């Protein structure tokens, strides 16, 4: 055997290499890089004014949600989304990677396929989202050890869940030929629902938001736990997140057996 070095399925150090590599590629186009990062932060800021005006007009409470609760959801979702797309930016590209046959490149490398696919691409604008979430959190909440710890945990959970949902939705491409449009819509739907107070939803929508479009797991359960931490409820949240991650991984690997590859000409960008 001629290759040297310890062989690992997917070493953490490779994540660092991918991040440095993608950042270097993004900085090749400095202006576009800066516009994407700051443009996204500016875009998000516009929504804060919308919520400010709304709360001023209808009072300080929308079905139990206060302005600071909405800002907390915005902060963890913005930073969680940013973290997900900066570190695992290929989750939303899985359909394209499958139907163009680009997955071949990953299957030829000696690394576990799913993490290798996910970590190999960075969405630069996500840096803006990530930083924006942190700034928003610091600006709207007291920076205590407890608050910061919960913020960090929920950002990580949101990032994991968002990625898992994308993997699950896009893995349908293995079975149906192309599920890209469905996956994009479903992912956007989850983000749209999560940004509104969970208490405004009733009936079947509540079930939907805890399962197929798990906005509740990213939004109002974290908000409730941030207000008043309950270890049992937190444990259930972790279990629910874990279940979705397991289902997403299983869907990807089941799909991989049906992979038919393709011959589309292309380069890695």
């Amino acid at each position, binding site marked *: 055997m001629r290759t040297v070095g310890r062989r690992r399925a997917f070493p953490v150090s490779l994540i660092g290499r991918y991040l440095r590599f993608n950042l270097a590629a993004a900085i090749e186009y400095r202006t576009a890089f800066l516009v994407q990062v700051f443009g996204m932060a500016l875009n998000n800021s516009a929504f804060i004014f919308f919520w400010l005006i709304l709360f001023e007009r209808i009072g300080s409470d929308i079905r139990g949600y206060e302005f600071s609760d909405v800002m907390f959801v915005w902060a963890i979702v913005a930073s969680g989304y940013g973290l997900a797309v900066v570190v695992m930016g290929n989750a939303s590209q899985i359909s394209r990677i499958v139907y163009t046959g680009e997955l*071949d490149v990953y299957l030829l490398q000696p690394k576990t396929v799913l993490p290798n696919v996910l970590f190999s691409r960075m969405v630069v604008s996500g840096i803006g989202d990530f930083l924006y979430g942190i700034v928003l959190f610091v600006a709207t909440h007291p920076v205590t050890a407890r608050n910061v710890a919960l913020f960090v945990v929920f950002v990580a959970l949101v990032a994991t869940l968002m990625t898992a949902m994308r993997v699950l939705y896009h893995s349908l491409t293995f079975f149906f030929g192309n599920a890209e449009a469905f996956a994009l819509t479903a992912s956007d739907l989850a983000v749209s629902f999560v940004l509104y107070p969970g208490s405004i939803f009733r009936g079947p929508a509540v079930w939907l938001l805890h399962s197929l479009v798990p906005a509740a797991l990213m939004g109002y359960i974290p908000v409730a736990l941030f207000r008043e931490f309950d270890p049992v409820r937190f444990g259930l949240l972790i279990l629910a997140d874990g279940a979705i991650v397991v289902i997403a991984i299983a869907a990807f690997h089941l799909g991989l057996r049906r992979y038919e590859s393709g011959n589309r000409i292309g380069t890695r*960008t």
Partner: protein
Amino acid sequence: MKPQHATSAVASAVSVRSLRKEFRTKQKLPGLGAAFRSLVHPSIRTITAVDGVSFEVERGEILAFIGPNGAGKSTTIKLLTGILYPDSGEVRVLGLDPHRERRALAYRIGTVFGQKSQLWFHLPPSDSFSLLAGIYDIDRERAKRRIEFLTEVFGIGDLLTTPVRKLSLGQRIRCEIAASLLHEPEILFLDEPTIGLDVVVKERIRDLIRTVNREDGVTVFLTSHDAGDIEKICRRVMVVNHGRIVWNGSVNEMKYTLLNRRIVSLKLEAPLVFSMEGVEIVKSKGYAAKLEVDLTRVTIESVVSTLLRENKIVDISIAAPPLEEIIASIYGRTEAPVDGEQTTDGDE
């Protein structure tokens, strides 16, 4: 069809037995109406891409794997490299099962698919090399030495710091092959490595492939539509058509025995005077002529002796027909109805 080479699986770089792969594709007639009808009642066609093929590739060999578009070449390579799961049959590459031991095999094989790049488009090749070294768990010092070695052999020193998007196709392919050799693979799978290149660059790529094979003992499994690649690099050729191997033998054997024809080119002191059963005068103009000899009807010896007796010959050459013609002839002979293909109605 020629008998398969009998080699033991242990000594083989690649050993394939009765390999089969089918694809099911939805058929759709043109038009909006047909699109709606196919929603309710889809017509599914089963295409047998690889139809029970068996072959061996010895270690250190350079093998050409050729066939017309859609013959099953790429599917076979994808089955050998662990990209696709076979429906049935047995595959061993360096003693490993490609789809069950994909990661272990990936450390030991290199691939260059002309259509899919492993270099990042916006970054210079040196960055891609460094990332690939990480992916293949090559330590920093060894990677540095290996990159220096490949840079020298492939003459890519000037290209290492130029973004890939600014390289010419020939420069990019050189960097692609160098990248595929970074982890010192034992087998190199090359899918159309010279496609779209000019003759000078093609020759350079061929030289590099020969060097890698000769100096590092790397087994080369090459697909190409370019007869020059096959003639100049490979010792053995396998022709695949409709998912089946229709020829498996040495390149020379193919050239000299498959088609019983020879081309005799002549330069003469006077216009040609010649007529013989089994010989066709393809061209005769002034003091030059070209004859095509059918060896099933006449021997080359009797043709040459008759020519020498009846003409004053300045120069004579005898050659097999060009490889392109031979390959086209093999393809033509196997253009039979495809019995592995069927259309069925049903749900997908």
